């Protein structure tokens, strides 16, 4: 009965609405137009242009020639630097991703255990997120520069790590440390917010049942925030595969090619050597890597991410 009544009301409502709706398609068109022009010109067109470019030898000046898969075959078979760049990118991403998630989850859990000042601690670790990465990298470069603060600290401690930015193996570690400092804040706040949403009653019930703090973390809080943890991991992986700013400032890809990543290679080939076609091919390899890693994570999430309902 009530349902009938309700449907009568909605019916009487839809009639005048249809009258208004006469021009809705037109209105929608004009509302969407500015965005659509921008997206077509600056997003859709560039994507197709990028595919096309990667099959040419365009050098900015002169006319482009179609070269088929030559850029891609050269990347994987003839370019001695490319495998190094690929390895560096994967190395950076894996180490940075693991460290970022471990540190941010640790900090988030630690902050959530506090009775006072949670938001102040959150604020402190978040600060670098809102500062220019370039400025952050310059400050860390001063710290790591030879004869700088880090070197004198190592000397004081008699540790053999000096001039890290000139070292084949340690330069990447310096870049990763800088990236962690700059980037750990966002995930810290994200995971902290997720931990705040875990119902206190669950933890209380577990406590009454005699579960230790350790068990409560691994068996209750972690599974409950695992969807957020997954979200943070995927987003962090996508951004870290595109790492550029820190490397541009701190090492310029060096020493040698020890810290050259895909992002840096795209910049170098495209805007220093003006090999637009070759650089576009590298960009598509990067895209494939991003898609592959994301797909891998989505496949792997079934093993550890718990969704409600």
């Amino acid at each position, binding site marked *: 009965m009530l349902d009938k009544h309700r449907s009568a009301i909605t019916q009487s409502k839809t009639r005048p609405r249809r009258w208004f709706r006469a021009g809705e398609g037109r209105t929608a068109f004009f509302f969407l137009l500015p965005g659509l022009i921008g997206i077509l010109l*600056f997003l859709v067109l560039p*994507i197709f242009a990028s595919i096309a470019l990667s099959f040419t030898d365009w050098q900015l000046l002169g006319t482009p020639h179609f070269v088929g898969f030559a850029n891609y075959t050269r990347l994987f078979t003839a370019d001695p630097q490319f495998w190094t760049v690929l390895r560096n990118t994967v190395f950076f991403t894996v180490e940075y991703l693991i460290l970022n998630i471990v540190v941010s989850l640790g900090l988030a859990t630690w902050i959530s255990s506090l009775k006072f000042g949670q938001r102040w601690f959150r604020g*402190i670790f978040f600060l670098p*997120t*809102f500062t220019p990465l*370039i*400025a952050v990298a310059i400050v860390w470069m001063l710290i790591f520069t030879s004869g700088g603060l880090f070197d004198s600290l190592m000397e004081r401690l008699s540790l053999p790590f000096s001039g890290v930015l000139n070292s084949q193996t340690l330069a990447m570690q310096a870049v990763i440390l800088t990236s962690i400092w700059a980037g750990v804040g966002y995930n810290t706040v994200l995971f902290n917010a997720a931990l705040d949403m875990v119902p206190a009653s669950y933890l209380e019930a577990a406590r009454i049942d005699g579960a230790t703090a350790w068990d409560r973390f691994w068996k209750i809080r972690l599974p409950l925030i695992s969807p957020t943890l997954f979200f943070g991991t995927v987003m962090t992986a996508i951004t870290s595969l595109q790492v*550029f700013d820190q490397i541009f400032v701190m090492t310029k890809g060096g020493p040698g090619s020890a810290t050259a990543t895909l*992002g840096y290679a795209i910049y170098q080939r495209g805007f220093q050597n003006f090999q637009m076609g070759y650089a576009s091919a590298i960009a598509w390899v*990067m895209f494939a890597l991003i898609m592959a890693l994301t797909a891998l994570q989505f496949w792997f999430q079934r093993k550890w991410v718990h969704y409600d309902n």
Partner: protein
Amino acid sequence: MTTKSKAKARRRLVLDVINHAALAIVAVAFLFPFFWMVSNAVRSNAEVMAIPVRILPKVFEWGNFVAAWTRLPFGRFFLNSAIIAVCVTAITVVVSCLSGYAFARLKFKGRETLLLGYIGTLMVPPLMLIIPLFLIINRLGMVNTFPGVILPISFGTFGAFLMRQFFLSIPMELEEAARIDGASRLRILIGIIVPLSMPAIGLLSLFTFMGQWNNFLWPLIVMTGADNATLPVGLTMFQTQQGTQWNYLMAGATLSMLPGIFLAIILQKLIYNSIALNAGMGGR
């Protein structure tokens, strides 16, 4: 209270204090690079590189900030960064409100498909588009101009999606009365919907503004003239000039960080809520 439970409570209090103090130490250590930046900004360049390293400068040279602002010229870079970040934010907000409203309230053919397409474009990494975008800007003759930097990065689809989600939460009844009075959709959007959507607009503005303020690669490529450099690009320009002027560089870095630090502190709650929203969406 028994003495046993009293002792237990006291032990818990001590552990609590230690817990807070330990994290406070970690936080202070975390802040050290900020301190080191300012400390090196206010000393002479000779002292920056002096051995042994001094934690505090012998003489505080506060004039370095003025010198960096006028001589290097960070004042100009600051202005360029501000123009770009403000313009991109303004365009993004206007375009996102218009498209978001169309997706949320207007019926048209292919709406869901188009929305899906918008969301799909979020997967395209910005670094991939750098080369073709530069070539387009080059073809349009807009290299080294403000429109050349601003336009290509003002049409992200995330804003449209965000605004749509927010508009959907606004009760339909609020605009129905206005519609019966014959108000146009644009009037309804500006007069009724936008004033109610300030939290979402604030969020979109904040993250767009900060993203552009900190953006480096795109302005580096497009702004080829030294006068048109943004703050981050300007900072790298003085990195290699004959013997780096570290003290001015640190002063410039400090200046470039001020707006973000200021916003992060006064908008703490908005930032936390917006990130918590992400946590919630990922979570449930």
